[in-house]
């Protein structure tokens, strides 16, 4: 689910419930005005300081422009999950080792837990939520569903984003190459064998 401030939803999400719709709409209007002002101002200082107080953050996530305010120390992962309600990417180790937070930045996979949100401005960010095309599930998560390639599923958004990025770069990737592409992702439930089956299915169907 991807309900950022300003979005309208028919159902009530956990976060939408917490934030309250009226306040969100007002905040969104304020943000837009601030954004216009920020982009209109010429830069006077080429060192470009920001913070430590919260600063305006605009990100392009799954093709949509989202805005909020964050302190400089907020990571891309926390900005996505806690400020923008893009919760596909998961927080597990928070130390660049498990891959649960994997997102694509300009087509390359990164650990969102180890990148500052401010560093991702102007980039094309894609998360597991992007793996739907015209209401149809992308072939990568489809293969995971077909092959029962998850147990708790907490690692899955990271794995599918890594695989999608690898297939986008090379739709003819071999199973070995796809396994290498997920070598920065860990599954604590150990569902690797089923993921191997999913990878074989993906290679047979050409990504």
């Amino acid at each position, binding site marked *: 689910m991807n309900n950022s401030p300003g979005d309208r939803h028919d159902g009530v999400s956990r976060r939408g419930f917490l934030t309250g719709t009226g306040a969100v709409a007002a905040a969104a209007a304020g943000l837009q005005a601030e954004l216009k002002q920020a982009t209109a101002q010429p830069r006077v200082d080429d060192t*470009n300081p920001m*913070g430590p107080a919260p600063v305006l953050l605009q990100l392009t996530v799954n093709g949509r422009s989202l805005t909020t305010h964050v302190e400089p120390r907020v990571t891309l992962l926390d900005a996505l999950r806690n400020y923008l309600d893009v919760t596909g990417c998961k927080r597990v180790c928070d130390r660049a080792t498990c891959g649960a937070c994997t997102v694509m930045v300009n087509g390359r996979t990164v650990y969102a837990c180890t990148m500052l949100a401010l560093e991702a401005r102007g980039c094309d960010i894609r998360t597991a939520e992007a793996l739907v095309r015209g209401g149809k599930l992308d072939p990568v998560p489809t293969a995971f569903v077909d092959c029962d390639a998850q147990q708790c599923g907490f690692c899955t958004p990271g794995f599918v984003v890594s695989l999608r990025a690898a297939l986008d770069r090379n739709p003819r990737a071999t199973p070995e190459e796809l396994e290498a592409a997920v070598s920065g992702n860990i599954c604590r439930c150990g569902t690797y064998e089923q993921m191997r089956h999913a990878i074989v299915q993906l290679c047979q169907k050409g990504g």
Partner: protein
Amino acid sequence: MKNFTYYQPTSLSGVLKVLDEAAGKAEILAGGTDLLDRMKEYISQPEKVVSLVGFSGPFKEISSIAGHPPTVTIGAGVKLVNIAESELLRPYPALTSAAAQIAGPQIRNMGTLGGSLCQRNRCWYFRDEHVQCLLKGGRRCFAHDGENQYHAIFTQGHPCVIVHPSTLAPPLMVLGATCDIRSHKAQRQIPIEQLFQAPVKDGQREHTLAPNELLVSVTIAPKIPPGATLRNASYEVKQKETSDWPIVQASVAYYTEAGGQVAKGVRIALGHVAPTPLLSPAAAKVLEGQEVNEKTASAAAEAAVEGARPLSQNAYKVQQLKVAVRRAILLASGAKPYWEG
């Protein structure tokens, strides 16, 4: 993580200006794969963080690979993945294979050359917020008689027995690299060996840069006579095939003259075995002027471990280092890797 003022300068002079004015209270942020981890653990608490992303796009010197082999310059902001995949760097498998071996795809997509060379060590005592080791103002290095299975084996004269963490340092050392270093008012070039030091107290790092200095680029310029063929390779011993730090690493470079098989101008460097990446003149001397084969490679490997003084839990690394040196030499010669069956 403690909060900070974030700077995203749009020019090199902007970066150097912030560093100069910060007087040691700033950290440079490249890919962040080391720095953010340290900040989350409160090992580093900079007041200012100076990002390189703002100017790495338009500013070619820090973000591009340029030149004509044998002389190629790599910007400090170049990502590990781009080193691994570079066409221009193909003559240097010692470097490209080492870059391709580092961690997993996400780290290689984020991490940079400058960050790899300037990162801090991974000793678990140093990385523990609650342990006051020698490098954090304490009185002793706990690894000496503590958990030290991944620590240094060349320990003599070292009060702190970390291993230098960079997997790119040994290949760059054997390829005769020099560093271009700049500060607000000055610029200097040093051989890459001089970039590293063994820290012994708080405030010292594993590199020799002053707090206001930026590593801008590294230039590879192996010394080979015209017409000669450069041969080079690296070999890492790891616990897992991917996504792991090397336990030991060896990089080798030498040249052969037209038609000949004799190794000349041999350079051998050892990684992850001492507080700095180590050149091994002893091993190089054994191979110099010899035809490369399993026998001469093994002899050089024996010489490489001379002087090793392992700790209580890491004598196994001595044997592994011999294996790494032997295999790196054989890989450089183009021999078929016998260990792959």
